[in-house]
Each structure stands twice: as structure tokens, then as C-alpha cells.
């Protein structure tokens, strides 16, 4: 035994088998292997935030120098705009009160009112084209955990556009599978009354151009460039009505393999903060949408 342990090839085989076991166990949802990362995460996250903060400060410093003159001019323009906006705010407050009265009178439900929204900051992004998961700074300690009953959570940006879904969590952080990732799939519908239900998923070929593939288009349905897609709510993983993106091309050349490409509204490279949608006690997917929120491209 001692001879075996002194043999480097034996140790290498042992380590390889151990890693393969970790990979297999990690593929099982809710596996305790996920907790392996927790101790490192606790140490790494503050260090990572420090690096992120330092980088932002350096970037801000240089921006401040280069943009100083432009900021002064912008400031004087903004003062004028503030005066105009204050007037609009007053009108908006009045409209808001009326909306609340109407809402109570007609029992209108807000979009996603059955969901708690957890704000979070993006900690890390892709390491290369194949290791391309995003990490955010909310985890089990914030009540976000993956189990047999809760397979995932939807992640959206500030405009409520779909960013991706939570893939795994540890105590202080979670991994988000972004919409462009080849492992990402969502059931979507064309954002019209009785719009067709299709499947949107990431594709290696399209990821580079920031696009997704749309397929499983029902017979007799012909998608058009410019069609807006939202989550359909089928499957219960994502609430219905989250804006996904817009069709940019359609290929109907093969009857058996009709597909389209979609440009997501979300600009993942420019994101700093995202929001996790956690269902309240009511069953997931029970959000009533009246009306479907307006899809807005991320700036």
C-alpha cells in the first residue's frame, strides 16, 4: 500500500477518479457537493469584491478626469430638466393615486405580485467561451436555494427583461445560467393575444453574436421579424410574461426544421445588477399578468 501511494501515476488516477465522482455528484440536483464551494466562497467573495471595487475606482478616477468638462455642461442642462421633471412628478403622483383607486375597484393584479424580488450584484462573469456562468451575491442566506421542489429561479434586469436562471446556490452566492448559454432553454410565447408558444434556447454558433435560437415553432405559425417574445409560463420555472427579446431573422426553408433567431433585450456584458424572482408562498407560476409589461431593450 505504501508503495502504491508513492507511485505518482496511482495518485493521479486516484485524484482523477475523485474529480469524476465530484462531477457526477454535482450533476445531481440538491447534491451536498454544492457545499464544497461554500468555505472558499466565504473567503473569495470579499476579496473579489475588493478587486471589483478597486477596478471600479480606478476606472471612475480616469473617467472623472476625462469627463470633467462634459459633466459641467451636462450639469447645467440637467438643472433645467429637473425643473421640468418636478412638474411631471406632481402630475405622475396624481395619476398614481387614480390608478390605485381603479386597481382596488377592479381587482387588477400587478405583474409578478406573487414574487419577491431580490436585488443582487454580479460578482463574476465568464472565464472563457466554455466556462460562461455568471455569479451573483445572493445565496441560501437570502432564502434562495435549489431543491427538488424548487428547481430554479428566474433572473431579470432592472427593466424586467429575462437575464437567465439560477443554476446553483451556496451560502453567499449563486450561479446564473445566462440566456445566451447553450444550456439555457425557456418556453416563450409571441406577445400577442393567444400568441404561439415556441422554445428559446442558447446556441454556440449564435452566442458570439449575442443571439438565441427559437425553434419548435408550431405548424401554421409563421414568426415575423420584429415579433416580441415573452416567457409563456409553461413548466412553472419562469412566471409568464417576462420580456425575452425580439425576432431578428426567420428561416422557413426546411419544413421539418423551421427556426428563428432572437436578440435578447438584456445586454449581459453591460449588466452590473440583476434581480432574482422568488415565488411567495403561492405556487410558482401563479403570477397574474394584467397587462403584460412592455418589453424594453436594455440601454
Amino acid at each position, binding site marked *: 500500500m505504501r508503495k502504491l501511494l508513492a507511485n505518482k501515476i496511482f495518485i493521479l488516477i486516484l485524484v482523477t477518479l475523485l474529480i469524476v465522482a465530484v462531477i457526477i455528484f454535482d450533476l445531481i440536483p440538491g447534491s451536498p457537493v454544492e457545499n464544497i*464551494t461554500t468555505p472558499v466562497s466565504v473567503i473569495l467573495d470579499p476579496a473579489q469584491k475588493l478587486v471589483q471595487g478597486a477596478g471600479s475606482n480606478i476606472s471612475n478616477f480616469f473617467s472623472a478626469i476625462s469627463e470633467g468638462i462634459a459633466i459641467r455642461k451636462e450639469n447645467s442642462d440637467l438643472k433645467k430638466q429637473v425643473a421640468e421633471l418636478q412638474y411631471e412628478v406632481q402630475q405622475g403622483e396624481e395619476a398614481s393615486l387614480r390608478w390605485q383607486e381603479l386597481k382596488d375597484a377592479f381587482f387588477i393584479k400587478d405583474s409578478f405580485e406573487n414574487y419577491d424580488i431580490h436585488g443582487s450584484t454580479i460578482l463574476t462573469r465568464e*472565464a472563457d467561451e466554455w466556462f460562461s456562468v455568471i455569479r451573483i451575491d445572493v445565496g441560501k442566506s437570502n432564502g434562495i436555494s435549489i431543491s427538488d421542489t424548487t428547481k430554479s429561479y428566474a433572473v431579470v434586469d432592472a427593466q424586467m427583461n429575462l437575464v437567465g436562471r439560477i443554476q446553483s446556490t451556496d451560502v453567499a452566492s449563486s450561479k446564473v445560467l445566462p440566456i445566451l448559454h447553450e444550456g439555457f432553454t425557456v418556453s416563450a410565447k409571441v406577445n400577442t393575444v393567444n400568441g404561439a408558444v415556441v422554445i428559446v434556447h442558447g446556441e454556440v454558433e449564435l452566442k*458570439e453574436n449575442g443571439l438565441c435560437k427559437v425553434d419548435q415553432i408550431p405548424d401554421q405559425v409563421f414568426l415575423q421579424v420584429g415579433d416580441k417574445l415573452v416567457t409563456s409560463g409553461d413548466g412553472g420555472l419562469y412566471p409568464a410574461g417576462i420580456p425575452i427579446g425580439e425576432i431578428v431573422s426567420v428561416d422557413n426553408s426546411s419544413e421539418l426544421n423551421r427556426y428563428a433567431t432572437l436578440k435578447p433585450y438584456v445586454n449581459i456584458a453591460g449588466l452590473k445588477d440583476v434581480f432574482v424572482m422568488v415565488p411567495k408562498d403561492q405556487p410558482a407560476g401563479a403570477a397574474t399578468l394584467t397587462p403584460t409589461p412592455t418589453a424594453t431593450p436594455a440601454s
Partner: protein
Amino acid sequence: MFFSTLQVTFPQVLSFRGQTADFMMVFVILTGYLFGTIDGAVIGFSMGFLRDMLSSTTLGIGMLILLYVGIFSSLLFSRKFHSRATLGFVQVILITLVYKVMGHVLYYFVPLLTGGDHMYLSTSTIIFNSILPQIAINLAVSLPMILLLTYLGPYRRGEKRIADGDRAASEEVWRIR
């Protein structure tokens, strides 16, 4: 830890034609090449763990890849060329090339085996937008890293080369007789 954090926190800062500088892999390659098998394997394993933790869907894939990268880089060239720092660049080119080619082969064939329709990148896109930019950006970051490891590394400069004789003997166990 610093390199892994840097790579995944500001990927857009050090990127070329859409490819991010792979600090973690370059660090493992150079550690293995300059400091030997054990160092390469340990750093490869640790970097792989961080890579998986930070940006992989499955824990273990990065660990396995970088462990073997660390070992492979320690065996390639090191005996005949006595770990000359300049040949570290050749290591980076070769291992990045192998990594990218194997990655593309896997991403092409695995979905085919599991069935379903599948789109994949054209050969020219793979070469000009993936492999070559990745090699170029990895080479760019390997220069400061070689200097860093040579002059500020864990061993005094030349210390590992003096021990080359011992290392050659110790690496005999890797040989299949």
C-alpha cells in the same frame, strides 16, 4: 486567487476579438513548466477548483482540465530544454491550441451523439475568432506572468534549474517501462 478573480471580474478589459485572456490557464502552464510536476498539478487543481466555482456549470470539469494541463506542461520540453523561460511561450501556444481544439471538437460531437438538431461555428470562425485570438491574448499575458514567476515566484531564480538533475530522476516514475 488574484488571477482567477481578475479574469472573471473584468473579462472585457483584457480581451481580443471576443476572447478573454485566460490568466488561470497561463498561470498553470507556466507554473508546471517552470517549477515541475507537483507544483503544476497542485496549482492546476486549485485553479481548476476556482474556475469551476466562479464560472462553470459543473464542479470538477475545470479541475480535471487544469490538473492535466499542469502535469502536461511540466513534462513537455522541461527535460531537454531545462525549463528555459522563453520556451514557456511555446508551451502557452501549444497548450492553448490543444485546449481550444479539444473544446470545439467536444462541443461539436457531444450534441450530435445526444441527438437533436445542432448548429455549430464554421471552421473559419473557429480559427479566426476563437483559436487565434485566444492564443494571441494568452501570449500577451504570459510575458508579464513569466517575469513575475521567474523573479517574484516562490523559488529563487535558477534554484529549480539547479535541481534539474534531481527532478529528472524523480520524473522517471512517470515513464512507462
